[in-house]
């Protein structure tokens, strides 16, 4: 048994493992600090729960390690179909906290199937793209991979869980880019969204129209397509203010708050402000373990998951935050390196997809905690509390190890 484990792990990219251990420890210390002021049964503090969640997480990690690569490749579409069924299942249960995110099967903890949708979708997408890589230069080939990501994303959006839905869509573009899709095709895909986004600001829209024109001039598509694309986007942009005005005020407000939380000072903005106060008051060295007033006086919302960075920032200071960010960036750079040196296309794509998912989580979480982007509840990998997410992270870690080719370096 031990020998088998040793054989499987002896030539792993060891730095990835070390980074993970460091991040997990930082997460546990932060959760321990939060738990210090939680009263009640000691066994159910956030800290002890997280420690217990490490057991299934390690089991998940090792399981992935022991599954041969070709098995993963062979059965991923079946897993993808199962995943689609599972993310439907929560709709059959009562809502928890007003959402259909969890499956409650009588265990002390609920299971969140959308967490597993992330990496199953990535692997499925990787298989599709590696199978069809010869035709990737054609625009129409891009549509099916988008479909693969879009289906679970739309279902999860109904739960509703906007954060996870966005995460699901994130890996498409890096993976398409990695596999060799033309940047122009990706531009075409993104253009309509940007046309709508820029439509509300005259100067931005003008700049966007000029940029679009320049891209079309440089890439020289067929005349008919170019003209249709250009004016289609302009028309879409011009139309969107009218569509906006046809929305009801509360709908408008909801969307605006999404982009500008200051409009809703008692809601999302309150969280952003409290989070910034906590992080800022930590200073360079932090207030010390268990001394974060904002943390322990409960000024911070969902501090154990979405706002864990505020706790770290307040208690351990900028020094710890910067170390954490450097570890995360080394972690991601290592993944990209592994993807670049992978022998086959499939593992390379899986690595890029998983790297993107990690990257999206890290960026959204920290940027939200520091008020750079609107509040979107996404946990920080290996650090935030949460069983399903921790398990998911360790499975993704397993996939990284699995997909990295032994012969690199």
């Amino acid at each position, binding site marked *: 048994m031990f020998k088998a484990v040793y054989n499987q792990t002896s030539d792993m990219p060891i730095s990835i493992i070390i980074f993970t251990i460091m991040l997990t420890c930082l997460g546990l210390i932060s959760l321990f600090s939060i738990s210090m002021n939680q009263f009640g049964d000691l066994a159910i503090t956030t800290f002890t729960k997280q420690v217990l969640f490490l057991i299934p997480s390690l089991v998940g990690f090792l399981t992935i390690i022991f599954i041969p690569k070709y098995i993963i490749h062979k059965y991923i579409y079946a897993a993808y179909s199962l995943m689609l069924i599972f993310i439907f299942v929560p709709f059959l249960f009562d809502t928890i906290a007003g959402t259909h995110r969890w499956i409650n099967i009588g265990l002390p903890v609920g299971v969140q199937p959308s967490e597993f949708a992330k990496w199953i979708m990535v692997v499925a997408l990787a298989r599709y793209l590696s199978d069809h890589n010869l035709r990737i230069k054609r625009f129409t080939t891009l549509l099916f991979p988008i479909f693969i990501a879009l289906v679970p994303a739309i279902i999860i959006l109904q739960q509703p869980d906007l954060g996870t839905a966005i995460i699901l869509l994130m890996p498409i573009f890096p993976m398409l880019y990695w596999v060799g899709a033309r940047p122009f095709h990706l531009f075409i895909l993104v253009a309509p969204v940007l046309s709508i986004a820029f439509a509300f600001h005259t100067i931005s829209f003008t700049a966007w129209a000029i940029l679009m024109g320049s891209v079309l001039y440089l890439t020289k598509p067929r005349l008919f397509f170019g003209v249709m694309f250009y004016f289609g986007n302009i028309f879409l942009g011009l139309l969107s203010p009218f569509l906006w005005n046809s929305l009801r005020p509360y709908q408008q407000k909801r969307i605006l708050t999404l982009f500008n939380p200051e409009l809703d000072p008692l809601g999302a903005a309150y969280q952003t402000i409290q989070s910034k106060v906590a992080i800022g008051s930590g200073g*360079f060295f932090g207030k010390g373990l268990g001394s974060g007033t904002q943390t322990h006086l409960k000024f911070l919302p969902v501090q154990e998951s979405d706002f864990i960075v505020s706790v770290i920032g307040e208690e351990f200071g900028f020094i710890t935050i910067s170390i954490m960010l450097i570890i995360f*960036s080394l972690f991601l750079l290592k993944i990209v390196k592994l993807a670049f040196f992978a022998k086959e296309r*499939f593992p390379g794509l899986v690595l890029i997809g998983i790297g993107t998912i990690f990257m999206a989580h890290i960026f959204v979480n920290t940027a939200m905690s520091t008020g750079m982007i609107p509040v979107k509840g996404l946990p920080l990998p290996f650090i935030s509390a949460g069983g399903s997410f921790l398990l998911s992270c360790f499975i993704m870690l397993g996939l990284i190890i699995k997909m990295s080719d032994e012969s690199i370096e």
Partner: protein
Amino acid sequence: MLKSKNLVPRSRFLVANSLIIIVFSILLIRFFHIQVYGYDKYKKRADVNRIRAIPTVAPRGMILDRYGQTLVDNYPTYILTGLPNEMGNENWNFSVISNCTSIDTSILMDNFDRYFRGRFIPSRITKDLTFDQLSCIEEHKHELTGINYIQFPERSFSLDVNMSHVLGYVKEIDRLLLSNMDDTEQYDVGDLIGWQGIEKQYENQLRGEKGLSFLQVDAFGREVGVVKDINDIKPIPGKDVFTTIDLGLQKTLEKAMSNYIGIALVTDPATGQILAFVSFPDFSPDIFTGNTTLREWREIVNNPTKPLLNRITNGLYPPGSTLKMITAIALMEGLMIEQNEEFECAGIYQFGDRVFKCWKVSGHGKVNLDQAISQSCNIFFYQAVQRISLNRFINLCQNFGFGSKTGIDLPNELAGLLPTRDYMNRRYTSRGWSRGHLLNLALGQGDLLATPIQLAVYINKIATKGKTFKPHFLLSKVPEPTNSMNLNEQTWIHIQDYLFHAVTDKYGTGSAADPKINGINVYGKTGTAQNPHGGDHAWFVGYAKDGNQMASTIILLENGGSGGKNAAPIARIAFEHLFKKNIINRLAVK
């Protein structure tokens, strides 16, 4: 298919790497900006977040009499408060409290709403809890949520005297009042503020300064403990106010006046200090602090004898014969009369088509100025006043303080009414009034209205030859001189003589005011003012002198009949009380 080659251009690898580095650099800069550059700003915000300053009440200063005896004090009462956030079912809480205190739930609810300031600030439900009520609430504590009781210093008044018009009262500030106040820095809902009398006049001195106690609160505003690194600021108790009141004299006079409607006022002409201040009927000062019901309140407001009216500073009366000295002084100052010049009083005097009468139907016969004042002959003054003009008369009245506020240290004093020539013209048109009005004025009747405190200044000026001070209650106050008078020394001596004779002469009208104590000279003038609304008002104005020690009294009995018979004896009680001590001292020396 698994074996398809991984052919990624190096450029795409570099793009991916630089993207990661750029994103993490941005994040690092952002954290640096917040944590290192913005540290001071957020540190401050974090402190404000966790520390809440709760004001602590400063006990109000006491009000004391001139010898340090307590007039107004504080006593601890228990206040029942409810924390809105923790109360849950308010109606249930109120019904339990109502059962214990037998106060109607609607009153409890009204109070609760009135003092409501926020979900995390306790709001007052009721006060003045008795021990029984408290123990009942303690028994039912498990049924109540968010209910607490705290100690609160309430005003308590000396039981011996009322003095409600002098002491005034304090009022609790509710939300409506606070929204109309300018000085919201110092006050908050539930605080006491001096609303009348000395409580209002010396509010700044009595109030003290609130302290601050710093509490650590969580995001929901709940207290979680004290702040270790900041010390509480202790409240500074209000300063005690020593008044010029002589509690014993006040008590005596309140008793003497208890059967009358009217006033008794004792002042010291040499300093302007007020020794006793009785305005009857009065009211118990604690009607404004206790749970006074609306019915009790209406009874006081609608009482025909107007207990809320401070008759001394806000009651307007015709001064009657007590004003005769004005005419006498005007005549002497103008050298328009000889000391022994006599006028004939036949009990009746015809002026034009009007007939004026003297109070003595048989007439006084031939009287000079001295006798006219001491015996209060009307006919003498009807004739003598014709030698002076209205302007001259009014000017002299103004010099003695009529028609303007005396500057007493009580709020809302009235100025009375002095019918100047302008006023007469406006009221009656220039042809509508004649010298007949002057004849009335000489007798203190007609349009002239004065407050008793004005009469006190008037008599104090006579007693001190014009060198008296403004009446006041604050013992530590440096007396402010009244306007200076420029009369002949002879005039002062004569007028004092006449007043002395009015008390001491065989026929003097004010003889009942003389306590007949050796060495004490009493000066005075009675008045019986006709009152168009009812019986005559009885007046006595005068002063007593024992060496350098002086005291003046003003007595007014509304519808009290004859000044000499009814008002003068009350003045005697005051003089007796004040100077008896001197006698005992003098006997002891012998």
